[in-house]
């Protein structure tokens, strides 16, 4: 069972429907016991970094996530969920994140339209099973105004080009982040989720 962390983060239904298509059982939950027993965890998220961190803290989900991360349980962060893995975001005056990955989150350059909204191409930064069978120009759907600024290069699996380099897939052992929405990225998104699920099972 996949535990999808329930802290009021927007549209979860599409993610559940996408996991259904892969035959994966998922449950939206904030129950520590259920999260502990789950095979893997997904941290979804839309909205503002600070609000999300406060919501996680309110339900002590930050502590639970840190414990599960340290235990080696696979955790996938999607969109803001990925950003929360980092040490710090400058959004709304600044806020500390979960600190699973080193780096910080900054606003996308105003040289381009913000939010970065729409379909952009994933470019592989290093080979990996996550990027198998995505076709020639794998377009995925992004919606975000902030992006990871200075990731550890070893953790960067794929990025997109939008007013500079936008880290799109990051991975460090059991921690994986996707800045775009795989559940909204058509066949490519479903293939990415499938690759991810195979890599952790």
């Amino acid at each position, binding site marked *: 069972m996949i535990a999808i962390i329930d802290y009021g983060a927007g*549209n979860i239904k*599409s993610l559940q*429907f996408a996991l259904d298509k892969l035959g994966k059982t998922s449950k939206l939950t904030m129950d520590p016991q259920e999260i502990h027993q789950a095979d893997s965890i997904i941290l979804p998220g839309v909205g503002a970094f600070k609000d999300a961190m406060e919501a996680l803290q309110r339900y002590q989900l930050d502590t639970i996530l840190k414990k599960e991360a340290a235990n080696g349980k696979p955790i996938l962060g999607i969109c803001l969920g990925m950003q929360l893995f980092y040490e710090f975001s400058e959004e709304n005056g600044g806020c500390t994140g979960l600190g699973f990955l080193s780096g910080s989150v900054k606003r996308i350059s105003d040289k381009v*339209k913000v*939010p970065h*909204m729409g*379909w952009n191409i994933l470019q592989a930064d290093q080979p990996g099973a996550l990027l198998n069978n995505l076709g020639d120009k794998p377009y995925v759907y992004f*919606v*975000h105004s902030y992006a990871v600024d200075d990731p550890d290069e070893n953790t960067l699996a794929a990025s997109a080009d939008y007013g500079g380099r936008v880290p799109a897939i990051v991975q460090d052992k059991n921690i994986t982040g996707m800045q775009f929405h795989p*559940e909204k990225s058509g066949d490519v998104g479903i293939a990415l989720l499938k690759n991810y699920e195979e890599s952790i099972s």
Partner: protein
Amino acid sequence: MLAKRIIPCLDVDKGRVVKGKKFQDIKDVANPVELAARYNREGADELVFYDITASNEERNIFLDVVEQVAREIAIPFMVGGGIRTIEDIHSVLHAGADKVSVNSAAVQRPELIKESSDKFGSQCIVLSIDAKKTADGDYHVFINGGRKDTGMDAIEWAKQGEALGAGELVINAMDSDGEKNGYQIALTKKIADAVNIPVIASGGAGKYEHFSEVFAEGIDAALAASVFHYEEIPIPELKEYLSSQGIPMRRRA
């Protein structure tokens, strides 16, 4: 580089897709869930659903449609029509929509844009503007399904909408809607140049060239209804054509 988006729009009345001309003469076209699945297969980049009746008793039929669509497709979709309150926005997002467009209610109470974007994030709040050229040569904002001239300048309203937190704009050109003579490029480009958020052109698509014209002007996305519903312009062929014109398009793998 970001691909330009092709967005079919489905007007939904009592659980069916319908099509009108200049906001009138409504005709029944199809089942919304089936049509959404078809567009998803054909490579549409996003979908828009407008609840065109939006009376209270029909609201639940519409929310059921939204949820069935979310189950069926894995591309983003926007919902609009009759959205008046934070609760309305919450209920469509909860049913599985990714974005919500506000129109008349935002004109009457602009704080709705700020309150909803603070609560749900700018990325899911779209300001939809019905605009029409008036006798003085300016474009005014119309509300109530295009029946009432507010006297507001469309470009100023677009800028205000961005400042209040809208994450995207849909510009519905009422003069060109349903006429198939091309998008209202002059107005849409003026607005796109005045803001730094994505702009979707709506109203007037009739042939392939209309899409390339609008994208050549830096507009981010183009919305259309009947040319797609009646397969006058098949989406795969349209994308093939636009790609050959050098316009970045998401293509099926």
